[in-house]
């Protein structure tokens, strides 16, 4: 009908939304995993970092693993072969 006005409501960032509805709509727009089971939320997180922060994250993990390895009691060779 000509001359009529159609009102379309868009959620305003300034208006708090119901948590359950927000989570549901977020899931609908941005799935956490893709069809291969890849964690997309982790990818979004790493993409939010700078290259230096990404390098530091790898480095921190490697150093943590090295600490764990050096702290773990070494098993005798006879047990390691099992």
């Amino acid at each position, binding site marked *: 009908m000509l001359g009529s006005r159609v009102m379309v409501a868009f959620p305003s960032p300034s208006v708090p939304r119901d948590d359950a509805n927000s989570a549901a709509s977020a899931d609908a727009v941005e799935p956490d995993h*893709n069809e*291969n*089971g*890849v*964690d*997309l939320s*982790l*990818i*979004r*997180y*790493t*993409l939010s*970092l*700078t*290259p*230096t922060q*990404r*390098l*530091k*994250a*790898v*480095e921190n*993990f*490697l*150093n943590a693993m*090295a600490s764990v390895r050096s702290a773990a009691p070494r098993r005798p060779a006879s047990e390691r072969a099992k």
Partner: protein
Amino acid sequence: MAVFDLGRLLLVLGEEGVEFIIVGGVAAALQGAPVLTQDVDILYRIEDGNLERLERALNRLNAVARGDSRNLPFGRSHLATTGHKLASTDAGPLDVLGSINDTLLYDDLIGSSDELEVMGQNTKVLSLIRLIELKRQLARPKDLAMLPVLEATLRERESQT
């Protein structure tokens, strides 16, 4: 002292003016893929001046052949070959590659690299698209295992731009 100091590895290579591209798992991580790796892989330019700079950098890092009890450093003639040199350094394991798959040299891939600021210095890092292409070509189980994460990262990055 930290076992892994990836920043120092890159810093020393940069300070010595070595022409190199970061490839492999660290390249994937720097490009935003949530992957973990055990070493840094660099592809360097095989050219007299660069070999001299690379040798100097490796000496500063006390690099020796990994897994060799003789703790042999890398000589210029060895670095001039296209093979892989696996090094242990003060700052962690470093794989120094003259080529990828014995076919692709630095000059073949420099055009497919991005310059990223890492630890305050501009560093050449293989692009995510080229990394995915290489992984598909190499097609080893470890390469294929990483592909879904790299491809998802590329898609996510493209959707954000």
